């Protein structure tokens, strides 16, 4: 490896924050959405691997805030703030929200990818964070890695290789 930074991995329904030169990665996004919120000036970035659009879907006793769009963004902003990110310079990028399988009986669960994308966009709007770029939809899984130094989001898909947004 050329750079000396570590790659911090984020699991499913999980989140974390890094500062340069470290990078942050999450693997195998299908209908899940990976959202990165970053402060270019202070080189801080947070990433959340979101599974579901709304915590109102939860029937669990204890809420995993990283799992739902409406709780994850808020939580992520707090984590970024603690790591030195300033709210006025925050921007966002996102990827994921694919429709992995097509079924005839299209219940709401089957549309979970697009719904996750919508929910994340709404949340970013709520906190007035501009969405700089995104790579969403389709029917392929994605692995994403964000570098707070360059603010580039590297996206790898199975058949389309790697691209940066």
């Amino acid at each position, binding site marked *: 490896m050329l750079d000396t930074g570590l790659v911090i991995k984020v*699991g*499913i*329904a999980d989140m974390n924050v890094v500062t340069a030169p470290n990078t942050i990665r999450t693997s*195998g*996004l*299908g209908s899940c959405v990976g959202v990165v919120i970053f402060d270019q000036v202070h080189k801080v970035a947070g990433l959340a691997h979101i*599974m*579901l659009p709304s915590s109102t879907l939860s029937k669990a006793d204890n809420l995993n805030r990283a*799992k739902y769009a409406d709780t994850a963004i808020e939580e992520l902003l707090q984590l970024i703030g603690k790591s030195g990110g300033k709210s006025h310079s925050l921007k966002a990028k996102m990827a994921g929200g694919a429709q*992995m399988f097509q079924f005839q009986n299209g219940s709401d669960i089957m549309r979970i990818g697009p719904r996750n994308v919508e929910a994340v966009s709404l949340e970013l709007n709520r906190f007035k964070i501009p969405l700089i770029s995104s790579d969403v939809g389709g029917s392929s899984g994605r692995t994403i890695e964000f570098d707070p130094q360059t603010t580039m989001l590297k996206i790898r898909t199975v058949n389309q290789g790697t691209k940066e947004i």
Partner: protein
Amino acid sequence: MSFFNNINSTHLDILKEIGNIGAGHSATALSKLLNRKIDMQVPNVKIVSFDEMMELAGGPDNIVASVFLRIEGDVPGNMFFILQLPQATKLIQDLIRDEEFSFEGGTLSELGLSAFQELGNILSGSYLSSLSDFTQLHLYPSVPALSIDMVGAIIGYGLIELSQISDYAIVIDTAINEGELGETNSINGHFFLLPDPNSFEKIFSALGVQTDA
């Protein structure tokens, strides 16, 4: 959900037996189809976190060939049949007698994909019908959906229903493999049965076991 706390070793044994019977029938079906000897490993029943679930199939980044079925009826749930790409390629090459076919950058012929889907259909069908016979429960599998993609993206989809209730999944994992060939060429597939949380009680009560002990 409190239900996960009530699971005891008897319950796990029952789930193991389900994996045993189901995958046993599937292995027989595959063996007949290929006219070769297929071995089955002792089923593994685990309560796993979602990340651990991905690791069971080789990690979220790992690219696999999979057949996914949604099960409706008395015990709703999801089922996956997962093969590593080299093994899936070999299997389909053997089935359609076409050495050109490959899941790894080669020709993905319509025939080969269709054969894989049908294979998934036969294997999961024999798994589920034996399970249905054993428990006297009605199971209606969906048309199988084929996907060649990252484990995280495929399995993640099957966890959506579950994820609304829990951060853990009970997975019945049965591996089948071909005994005779060397490791690289042998088929080593995984069946993952992921019943929806509410389905466990029905499975246990159908087999006459108390859940709220």
